[in-house]
């Protein structure tokens, strides 16, 4: 137990990186995922195909393989970033596929009358999507988005294998330094992850209540 309390600063440093990785990758995934979802519902067939292909390919590939492709593949074509940025890229690319699916099902859940009404007042496809359908779609998909981002939080632990000093790496170094307290250290890391997940879940719950109340 002492090993945990004496090294709280190591945990704080590690999990700060976990949180920042999660937030950056969440923004990246949200932007890319929404773009892909928009492609998938567009009237232009080639965009639809590419969007569908991206979702199918990425969803069926393990995140670790995406990591390997990004971390070892990109330097081959002279794209050299820090491991931290590589991790953000890999996590964003992977999570975007799940966000795209959620957004698409959100778009499909918006009542057809909404899109028809916007067309009847003369809105174009882009306007319909941007001003009428997507805002309603996003309020519908807050729960699935919450589970996607909580999964993302847990997935950041894979960055540990690529030399990013985040929560799991902090845990690993403490284990190596204090072998006797290994169970306490791993349990502490597990409960921090759990606390972060619960916090995220509570924030999304709050967001959902705020959004539904304002309607």
């Amino acid at each position: 137990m002492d090993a945990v309390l004496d090294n709280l600063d190591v945990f704080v440093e590690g999990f700060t990186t976990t949180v920042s990785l999660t937030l950056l990758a969440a923004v990246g995934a949200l932007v890319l995922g929404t773009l892909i979802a928009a492609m998938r519902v567009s009237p232009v067939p080639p965009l639809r195909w590419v969007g569908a292909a991206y979702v199918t390919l990425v969803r069926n590939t393990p995140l670790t393989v995406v990591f390997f492709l990004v971390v070892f593949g990109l330097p081959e074509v002279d794209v050299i970033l820090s491991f931290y940025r590589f991790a953000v890229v890999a996590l964003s690319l992977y999570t975007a596929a799940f966000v795209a699916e959620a957004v698409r099902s959100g778009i499909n859940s918006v009542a057809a009358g909404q899109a028809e009404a916007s067309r009847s007042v003369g809105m174009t496809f882009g306007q319909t999507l941007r001003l009428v359908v997507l805002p309603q779609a996003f309020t519908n998909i807050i729960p699935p988005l919450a589970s996607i981002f909580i999964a993302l939080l847990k997935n950041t632990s894979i960055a540990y294998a690529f030399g990013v000093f985040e929560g799991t790496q902090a845990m690993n170094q403490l284990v190596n330094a204090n072998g006797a307290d290994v169970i306490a250290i791993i349990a502490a890391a597990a409960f921090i992850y759990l606390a972060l997940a619960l916090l995220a879940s509570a924030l999304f719950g709050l967001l959902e209540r705020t959004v539904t109340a304002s309607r």
Partner: protein
Amino acid sequence: MTTPVLYDVQGPKARRRVLVSSLVGALVLLALGALVLQRLADNEQLDYEKYEPFLTEPLLYERLFEALQNTLIAAVYALVLATVLGIVLAFGRLSQRWFIRLPAVAVVEFFRGVPLLLLILFFFLAFPLAFDVELPALWSLVLGLTLYNGAVIAEIVRAGVLAIPKGQTEAASAIGLGRGPTLRIVLLPQALRIMLPALISQLVVLLKDTSLGFVIGYAELLRTGGQLVQVLDNPIQLYLAIALIYVVINYGLSLLARWVEGRQRRKTGPGSAAPLSQLATGVDPGASAGLGGPR
């Protein structure tokens, strides 16, 4: 797939516009593709020697096949153990006694909310240090996968049991069955049938997660790929090939899940089986926003 609610049935003008934007869109995508290819060519990634091993090295396929076997072995062990654990946990959670129900709830929520890698590292790092038992990498991986997927499958089983019409339970108690036998011989067999598509979807997740074995040195596809890359020096090509193996297997499995689900829906009428597969992917609105979610 896409319901064309977002745009009208197209007249001649709109059709022309869609055609034009299709061409423009296709051109933009082609241009992007060309840029990528250019970049690859500039860095000698399209040279024959990067692909040569795939054509001339039977040993490469031998190694990959061996690795694929290791991946599948881990996945099958973990699936079997996780299903057993999942059923036990689901029964615990459905129990009417609080001192069984509450621990089951805690266990399920804990293992769903913790990164899988942490569970695997727990078996890999903590067991040798704490209990002086050296676990082989395969078992660290399998046990980690079992705990996480067991918790997820517990939720699938619970949803499956709860989806069965109440009349079944009532009929069972009418013929004098207790709570346990009712669950075991009446509800579970029917639940297993309903939850089969969700279980197959979970197998996709599980199979993907076996790749975490590379962290602890288990010779599955990714680990073996890493070793091969050191000799062949073609990371992009080789890791893409490995990604392709996963995509083919997993896509096949998701098709199977969809087929099973469609067959069930035709047999039992719409609605009864649908929500379960969504529970596993977690991306459809209304699915439970637990701490698990898609991986």
